């Protein structure tokens, strides 16, 4: 009996060990406080400030191992980074000057047609929807942070361009072609749709009598019901933090409800499930070759930051919409976990090679490389996680 029992337990122990290593390694969510999250966001803004060029653009990508900078640039990411700075400006106005320099770079590259305005790519003159949507969200965040109306007209002009790109089913086309004077009828973008959704939702918040809610609802329904099928998302729902921002913004709109319909609420739930799963998996990864082999490489901050941002928005949505209230605690737990991982992986004072001339301090590096949107999304996630962290710190353990 003892021999059989010992052999059985031995086989079980080996099986449990394999299972532990392969399927359920420990999940690690470093603790982080609200104050630390704000410091982290400010440090990320410090990276962006130091990376800003005299013309208002930012260092696009830096390889710390080779000490080289990328010659590429991307107006969508420029607008996103500027928007993240304006988000922080609501709490820390010291970043406003840097953000305004970034805004001036965009104003220097505007195209205007038939009552609308759009940011054109300085390299080839092309006009891409995502850059304009994020420029509009940047302007909206500036308006929220400062209550300064000087760019209200510009916001309306850019928002009108977004409507030019919207189709009857609520979806958006990606590019406007100056050669033909019309949108490219074929190309869509999985990013630009959600970005435009959020931008329009913010427009209704800031200008609630101007009718921006109708187009916003159309895109909300397209995202909730059709996007993943029409645009062939292989593992729906696509983890779209922009859509999460838009839904949370809609839920907080002024005036009487209902703000989100059932399809929107179901979609928000699916997004929460996707972001939660991604954070759980990420929390099982380690910075080691073995973990890379078994569980894949740790996500870059531009990726994990979007999960944190999405969870932060959905947590706010779950506070407002009773159909999602049952998910609030878990969403908060995952959001706090994402914030903890981001805080731990950020380059801090005292880390190697953080001198004043090297853009490392406050940044997030993956295999020695950082890109401007690593800081953008991580900054956004850290900043917006503070409310979750504050709430969790007050809840009984």
């Amino acid at each position, binding site marked *: 009996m003892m021999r*059989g029992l010992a052999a059985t337990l031995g086989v*079980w122990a080996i099986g449990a060990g394999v299972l532990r290593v392969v399927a*359920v390694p420990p*999940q690690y969510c470093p603790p982080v406080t609200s104050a630390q999250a704000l410091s982290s966001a400010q440090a990320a803004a410090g990276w962006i400030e130091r990376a800003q060029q005299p013309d208002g653009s930012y260092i696009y990508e830096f390889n710390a191992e080779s000490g080289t900078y990328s010659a590429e640039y991307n107006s969508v990411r420029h607008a996103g980074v500027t928007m993240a700075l304006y988000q922080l400006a609501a709490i820390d106005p010291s970043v406003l000057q840097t953000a305004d320099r970034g805004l001036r770079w965009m104003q220097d590259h505007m195209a205007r047609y038939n009552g609308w305005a759009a940011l054109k790519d300085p390299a080839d003159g092309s006009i891409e929807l995502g850059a304009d949507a994020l420029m509009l969200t940047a302007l909206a965040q500036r308006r929220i942070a400062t209550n300064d109306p000087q760019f209200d007209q510009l916001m309306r002009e850019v928002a009108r361009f977004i409507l030019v790109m919207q189709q009857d089913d609520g979806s958006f086309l990606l590019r406007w072609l100056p050669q033909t004077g019309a949108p490219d009828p074929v190309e869509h973008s999985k990013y630009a749709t959600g970005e435009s959704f959020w931008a329009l939702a913010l427009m209704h918040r800031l200008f609630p009598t101007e009718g921006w809610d109708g187009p916003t609802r159309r895109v909300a329904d397209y995202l909730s019901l059709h996007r993943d099928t029409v645009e062939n998302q292989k593992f729906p729902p696509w983890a779209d933090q922009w859509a999460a921002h838009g839904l949370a913004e809609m839920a907080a709109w002024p005036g009487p409800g209902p703000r989100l319909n059932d399809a929107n609420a179901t979609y928000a739930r699916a997004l929460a499930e996707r*972001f939660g799963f991604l954070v*759980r998996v990420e929390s099982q990864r380690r910075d080691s070759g073995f973990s890379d082999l078994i569980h894949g490489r740790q996500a870059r901050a531009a990726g994990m930051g979007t999960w944190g941002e999405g969870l932060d928005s959905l947590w706010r949505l779950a506070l407002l919409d009773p159909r999602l209230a049952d998910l609030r605690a878990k969403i908060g737990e995952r959001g706090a976990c994402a914030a903890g991982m981001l805080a731990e992986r950020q380059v801090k004072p005292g880390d190697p090679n953080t001198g004043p001339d090297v853009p490392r301090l406050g940044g997030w590096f993956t295999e020695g490389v950082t890109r401007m949107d690593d800081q953008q999304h991580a900054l956004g996630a850290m900043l917006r996680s503070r409310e979750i962290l504050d709430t969790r710190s007050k809840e009984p353990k």
Partner: protein
Amino acid sequence: MNYWQLSVVFFAAINPPAIALAMGRRGEDHDARFRWLVPAIGVAIAAVLYGLAAVGAERVLHGLDIEPESFRLAAGIVMAAVGIFVIWRGAPDTTGDDVGLQAAVFPLALPLLFSPAGLVAAVTYGADDGGGKAFGALVLALAIAAVLLVSQPRRGMPALDALARITGALLVVIAAGLVVDGVRAV
């Protein structure tokens, strides 16, 4: 999950027909007292072990730094593997020639009644639905196993074999659902 759904889950995970078949293949114990005593002791030991696993599930997972949602994936993998094995091979072959009360511990209590699939099911549903509820549901499966073991339905071996394999298939379906649930959970 309600109590009856959980009972079905534990019936599939513990698979009483497969256990009855595995013990039946070992041959009849000639001591009449052991006909009920061996199943009773085996079930009692398994019940205690399962009770500890179900009631302590949350603490165990917390100690291992595993979220219950993530453990569902691992539980689903183990349950699916066991289910596929039962579909393919039928009841497990037991090693050793222990008889009498020794057989109540090995192989009956462990690994037949207290099995890997049953263990991970007790932990995952104990963490998700509460240890008491999970334990209450798995007791029903243990009771069915006890009845089948005491009755020793020798003439019904082919039927038991078919039932064991069908139960294995049910376990695979439940395991697939558990994996999907683990992926879809926040």
